[in-house]
């Protein structure tokens, strides 16, 4: 208080009250005291106002950069110990896809980093760009799409490049997967993960039970369409329709089940046989996927314990013409193949989860018409690959996770690959939100 009064006197002096110096009489002193008291009050009032203004100001973005999109970066690194040479990896019994489906390199490696930008564009659209930065291949666009906000009646339209809504796992980004790698079925039927350039229309029903139906039309830029990069043709190269039903059950179970049908017309879809020759397929490819997911958390509060059960069944029919590189001949080819996986992940205490996944593929039936013979395509020889995977992960915050995974992979008909992965996945920047 004393200090404040002194300050007020100094202020008064500075404000130009020359008579202060010469003040002698009692009256003058009293008048000065009154002046000082008033100044004191003014200072106090100013402080309160300033405090309130500070609250207001701090809750308001200060600059143009407040309009910047939400930015987040995913970093992931991995140590792999593989008992078999990853360069000789292949999934026997199935047509090799054009994507990277192998278990990666041995030893330490930097996984794909992800850079995500997202914001509302205006009142009509929201935009999202997710770039993947691979240590070998540079920058690629994983997803880059706009999405409508202003359509009503449950409709949304997405356009650009996006992960196709075929099945369940395909739409989820790798950093949010419960295991280090994709299920075998996703590898052989969708080339690990199918990202399509195109348009998606989705409709959510006005019912208490969740129901959606959707349609995707795309270029066919990736396996199972082909060639790589898409066909040189106007119109639509791939079509996908899907529907989901979901809801709650009891006081802690949420579920969703879906069916999708992906139809593509590959044109000169090439694949290399292990012998080094290049074969190509032109025809029709139709894929059915049934998926189901069930999540349990006591009272829907997943903080302490929760359980997640997820499975998908794939069935693909292909028929058309196959050109054999070895024989340089073209003949008819047809196949009916299937695969499934089932996985469960249990968080038994906060931060810690354990999981198990079972993979099984069935090479089904393949038929070749003359002049082709099954012997020309050793990779397509009948074989049913299987894999068992267990993992444990530690999630100390919403933004970091460390995982140890062990898999016994029988993708190759001649050898079992024992794989150990130690991995970290972290996210920096904007708070993420994950799909159910």
């Amino acid at each position: 208080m004393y200090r404040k009064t002194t300050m007020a006197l100094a202020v008064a002096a500075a404000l130009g009250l020359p008579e202060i110096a010469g003040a002698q009489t009692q009256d003058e002193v009293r008048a000065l005291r009154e002046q000082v008291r008033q100044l004191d009050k003014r200072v106090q009032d100013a402080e309160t106002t300033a405090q309130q203004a500070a609250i207001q100001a701090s809750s308001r973005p200060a600059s143009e950069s407040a309009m910047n999109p939400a930015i987040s970066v995913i970093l992931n690194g991995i140590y792999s110990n593989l008992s078999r040479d990853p360069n000789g990896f292949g999934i026997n019994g199935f047509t090799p896809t054009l994507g990277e489906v192998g278990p990666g390199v041995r030893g330490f490696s930097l996984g794909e980093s992800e850079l995500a930008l997202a914001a509302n564009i205006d009142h009509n659209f929201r935009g999202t760009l997710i770039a993947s930065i691979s240590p070998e291949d540079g920058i690629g666009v994983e997803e880059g799409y706009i999405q409508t906000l202003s359509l009503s009646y449950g409709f949304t339209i997405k356009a650009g490049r996006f992960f196709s809504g075929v099945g369940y796992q395909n739409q989820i980004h790798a950093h949010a997967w419960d295991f280090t790698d994709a299920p075998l079925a996703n590898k052989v039927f969708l080339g690990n993960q199918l990202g399509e350039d195109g348009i998606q229309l989705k409709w959510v029903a006005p019912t208490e039970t969740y129901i959606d139906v959707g349609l995707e039309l795309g270029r066919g830029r990736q396996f199972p369409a082909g060639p790589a990069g898409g066909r040189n043709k106007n119109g639509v190269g791939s079509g996908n329709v899907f529907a989901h039903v979901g809801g709650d059950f009891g006081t802690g179970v949420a579920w969703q089940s879906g069916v999708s049908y992906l139809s593509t017309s590959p044109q000169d879809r090439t694949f290399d046989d292990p012998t080094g020759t290049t074969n190509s397929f032109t025809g029709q490819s139709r894929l059915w996927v049934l998926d189901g997911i069930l999540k349990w958390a006591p009272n829907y509060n997943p903080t302490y314990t929760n359980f997640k059960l997820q499975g998908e069944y794939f069935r693909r029919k292909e028929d058309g013409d196959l050109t054999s590189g070895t024989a340089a001949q073209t003949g008819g080819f047809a196949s009916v193949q299937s695969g499934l996986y089932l996985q469960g992940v249990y968080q038994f205490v906060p931060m810690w989860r354990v999981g198990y996944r079972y993979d099984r593929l069935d090479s089904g039936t393949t038929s070749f018409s003359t002049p082709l013979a099954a012997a020309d395509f050793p990779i397509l020889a009948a074989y049913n690959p299987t894999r068992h995977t267990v993992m444990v992960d530690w999630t100390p915050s919403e933004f970091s996770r460390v995982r140890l995974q062990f898999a016994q992979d029988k993708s190759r008909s001649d050898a079992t690959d024992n794989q150990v992965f130690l991995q970290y996945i972290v996210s920096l920047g904007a708070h993420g939100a994950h799909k159910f």
Partner: protein
Amino acid sequence: MKTILRFVFALGSALAALPAAAALNVFACEPEWGALAQELGGDKVSVYSATTALQDPHRVEARPSLIARIRSADLLVCSGSELEIGWIPLLLTQSGNSKIQLGTPGYFEASQYVARLEIPKVIDRALGDIHPGGNPHVHTDPRNIARIAPVLMERMAQIDPANADSYRSRGKSFLERWQAAIARWEQQAAPLKGVPIVVYHKDFSYFVNWTGIREAGSLEPKPGIPPTPSHLAELVDQMKRAPAKVIVYSPYNSPQAAEFLSSRTRIPAVMIPFTVGGTDKAKDLFGLFDDTIARLLEAVK
């Protein structure tokens, strides 16, 4: 393909043509806002609360049932200040509902209408899961509810003008009863002034600020980071030097950490309702504060 397309559109247009339900559909992110909308709306609204008192409103899955509900909502009432950042943005983009998107009258963030506490000076994830806009749990101060209620009331009147008079008269009556209740609670809570307490999470700050209770520590080492053994050991030591009077936790917190600290320090651990539905007596907003104050007074006696 063509058959499927035709089917999709036929089904779509058939269901889109269904008449909307008569009542105003309110989607409340948390039970307290559901209860407030119910007070203001009465029989003119149909309120759905996306979470219960047993859920941490920050960690909620964007479940299919929530998408189904938000799809038909006319008004979304949330705390805001990034409390629901992990799930509401997803629900909004998947809803196909233009009425409740950001920037429309149907989008209501309660915390925007009151002065927020604990706006961080330094924003860094090393400090835990902090909210740059300040503490979002504004409803634990009843004076904030008195500030938010008139704004929400006007918003409801704007969206549903046919029932505007009803919202305003219900709102006026609610505010009168609420102001009287605040005066009563302030009198009842007077003995709590200056009493040191340990909280679980920083979700009680507005109550602390209102009653003048003193927050002496929290079971979480950092906001959003679950209690760790080393942090609990530190708290035990701290409580031996300067004991708090009571340890409080919310229904969505596991009581383990609070009970551990309580058993080591002989300080009573009390579950407070935190929001509507948190305890049997917290049936509505009035019961929420009645029971919270009663439980604290009982513990510090």
